């Protein structure tokens, strides 16, 4: 018998002594558990954020250690959410860190059967070239009545409802200046 174990360490007695009558709290912790420290306690910094899923706008606290997100929790300061997060919001650390997340640019050539790797800056330059070429090829100056159109119907876009306002602003500004009008997002859906 473990010499450290006494009558007082009997489970039932522990439960009564600690007030943990259901045996779900301190009465049932092991030494291992007692030695654990939450990731939130050892974080280098805590950054206030907003849940990226639905439009309730729950407050999040992002815990960062060594330049990496280690945990995301509800922000008790938020008057909207008061510290709560739903299953999606609670899982958002995995949104950021999940191993399946694609971290590299990829390219599929016409008729290609698989992805190829590509340098990001090469990809962005290729997109810029295609943007300019498609715009040129599909440009419409006037309609059949001679009224100005000054647009391209050859470039379209879908997305924005998961993005920041500032991002949507640059997208709308750039596309409109380029004459690309078929810009849409989930708000239409």
């Amino acid at each position, binding site marked *: 018998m473990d010499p450290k174990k006494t009558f007082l360490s009997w489970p039932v007695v522990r439960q009564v002594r600690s007030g943990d009558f259901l045996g779900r709290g301190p009465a049932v912790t092991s030494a291992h558990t007692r030695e654990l420290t939450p990731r939130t306690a050892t974080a280098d910094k805590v950054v206030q954020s907003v849940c990226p899923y639905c439009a*309730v706008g729950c407050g999040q606290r992002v815990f960062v250690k060594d330049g990496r997100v280690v945990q995301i929790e509800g922000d008790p300061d938020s008057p909207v959410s008061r510290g709560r997060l739903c299953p999606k919001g609670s899982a958002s650390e995995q949104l950021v860190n999940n191993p*399946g997340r694609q971290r590299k*640019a990829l390219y599929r050539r016409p008729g290609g059967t698989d992805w190829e790797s590509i340098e990001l800056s090469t990809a962005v330059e290729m997109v810029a070239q*295609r943007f300019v070429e498609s715009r040129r090829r599909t440009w419409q100056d006037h309609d059949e009545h001679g009224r100005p*159109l000054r647009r391209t119907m050859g470039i379209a876009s879908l997305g924005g409802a998961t993005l920041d306002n500032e991002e949507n602003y640059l997208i709308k500004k750039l596309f*409109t200046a380029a004459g690309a009008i078929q810009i849409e997002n*989930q708000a239409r859906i």
Partner: protein
Amino acid sequence: MQDLSNADCIVIQGSNMAECHPVAYQWVTEARLKGARVIHVDPRFTRTSATADKHIPIRAGSDVVLLGALIKYILDNELYFKEYVVAYTNAATIVSEKFQDTEDLDGLFSGYDDEKGSYSQETWAYASNDGADDETPGTIGGPAAGHEHGHTKSERAAGDEHGSGGPALEHAKVLRDETLQDPNSVFQILKKHYARYTPEMVADTCGIGVDDFEYLARSVTENSGRERTTAFVYAVGWTQHTLGAQFIRTAAIVQLLLGNMGRPGGGIMALRGHASIQGSTDIPTLYNILPGYLAMPVAGLHDTWDDYLGAIGNKEQKGFWANADTYAVSLLKAWWGKAATAENDWCFDYLPRLSGAHGTYQTTMAMLDDQVEGYFLLGQNPAVGSAHGRMQRQAMSHLKWLVVRDFNMIESATFWKDGPEIASGELKTEDIGTEVFFLPAAAHTEKSGSFTQTQRMLQWHHQAVEPPGDCQSELQFFYELGRRVRELLADSTDERDRPLLDLTWDYPTDEHGEPDAEAVLAEVNGRHLTGDKAGEPLSSYTEMKADGSTDGGCWIYTGVYADGVNHAAARKPGREQDLTALDWGWAWPANRRILYNRASADPEGNPWSERKRYVWWDAEAGKWTGHDVPDFVPDKAPSYRPEPGTGGPAGLAGDDPFVMQADGKGWLFAPKGMLDGPLPTHYEPQESPVSNPLYAQQSNPARKVFPRKDNLWSPSGDAPGADVYPYVFTTYRLTEHHTAGGMSRWLPYLSELQPEFFCEVSPELAAERGLENGGWATIVSARAAIEARVMVTERMTPLVVRGRTIHQIGLPYHWGVGSNAIVSGDAANDLLGVALDPNVQIQESKAGSCDIVPGRRPAGDELLRLVAEYQSRAGSTVMTSNELRTGHPESTPDTRGG
């Protein structure tokens, strides 16, 4: 959101709030703990129903009948809030004698144009006291605009422009009868319009018993008035219909009659599903509007700057839209800076023009016609999330190039390799000529910026870490793309490139090339450009000028960066503030949390009751005050009356609370703005097993249909073949997943919690079709066949409609076919076709017709044969359910399209 806890009754309809917006639901729970009654109206029994006082199952798509009956109940029993209705709504306003109701024309309003399939709205106008009806050219809509036909308005989804206010009515020379007795008064028209929306009609249309209706009607009316308020809550269960905007209008009429608008615990709460879906409407990545709900110019309507100004708002009109010129000039100055001058109409000619509907579905069809070369997908997965997934994937296979910016390899990025059409043999990878760029995106923790949540509140999220690998924010990607495009065109002398080369496109960046999001926010907010304050941020949109001395990218957001402070980042803890919490985030406009809150006080400016005190007139101080930022000119006394003919905000009286409306009134009857009728009227969904019990007109005659071979429909009502697709399906979301799954099906926790696509069916339907709980079922619509695990549950209630049992099937739509996600499955949205609401061009996804049989679906060619065999058995042709006018002796089937 928090304000829901002030409600005495909450009706949740078209939303499963407890599961889809669970954290917001705490405020409903809070209200209930304080004694509020909560009622959930929904085809399915969900956790919202389980925690409500009552669940009322409804047949999908029949909500206007239920709410219309509520209107009738309120009117018949004189339960409306009389002082509020007379003073604050247009109940007393007289409508033109030319107006004819759907009761007169068997389901059509006056002004229907058979050829265009839409309405001319002239006959819906208010009568005018100078002898002429106000459709006299020049008296509505500005000097040059005149009356724009519903057809072009629909094409440009003009309904979206009312995201921040009602349409223009220049004159307010309206006739009013405050006794509400004039037969042409809005009040009497309303009575007549809903006369047949009886509890029995509710039973016969919605499948809701008379007792349940009575419970709802009593709950809502007993909890409204001076002392009490009722709130409505909805989500896409209301919007995704061919008359979705009218569903919400019906609720607005109920709330105006009961005096619940602009008051604490009242209103209509829209629960939106994406972090910044409100923001992406305000600063729109949408085809038809510019930031702040300014119209995109349309060829033929807005060819010149004067045409445009006349159309967006003129100085004689009342309310804040009279200053639309200042908003438009400030926007053009923000975009084209010094190049924008008075001489060149502020570069108005740099804006591209619309010439029809260019929404996402029209664009998809243009792809199929090889008119679109390049496509950007920015955090969106149309192969799974848009209606008619098959059409979406086929369309993308026609592109020359596709850029997918996402966290994960979503189905829209890999359709050329592992999509359902590859499996069925319809497409071959080698034959798909689309060049695909997958560019990984930065997460919210890896960039700074603001989201606008569902109640118009901007909240800043701060960057916590650097994005990994090649991951980039959209801010950086688009800044960089713009920079490179401008470089490629730098030597161009072509006039068409001036808008790009003259664009203000210079933002400070950090050492990683990330633009400073706060600098963009400052541009959105706007600045003084000249005078003593040159360079200083504007503090309110009322400071905007039309002379080029201010800029500002989105007038409704002006103030978010007042005094150079990022108010979206305001973070005073909620527990240190009152419930309104004005020092947390910033809500547009002007940090106002409840719109039209002047209506929370009586015409004299006193709170309607102590219990519902919110904003009131402080006579001593000579200003409005209260718990919120008053939605009124701060020092305009309740007794203020404008001189006749006064335009702009000063044209509204001290007791006209609806300051964004051209007459300052809440509109029970909409003389302008709604394209499919001034009053909501029940029509059946595009495909429905039920005939419209109210009118010979089956479906919304102004809806947008696309008669094409790849977009067939089930016959409806009593038409032959309707029994081939005898069941109603409705799509929905689960707590553990997010729309098309791009942000949830790649996460281990969430995938484990909801691993597999399933369908919910009642025990009765399971018995009828031999479906087994946990087994497989194949669901067939006129577009596609998919398979799902079966969940037999009493949560689905068979409804009896005119003696016939209607079964509804629930389908969560989060899964898609691909090989990269942790969990995958057939996509429910493949079952959907494309038919749209005419006001906003949103598709009907909440009600469709299908069959369900036990077992897995076949694969390959056999799958296509199964779908074709059903189509043939039903006799579906391209015109099936696509006729806009039905049942009228003089109507001839529309034979366009094919």
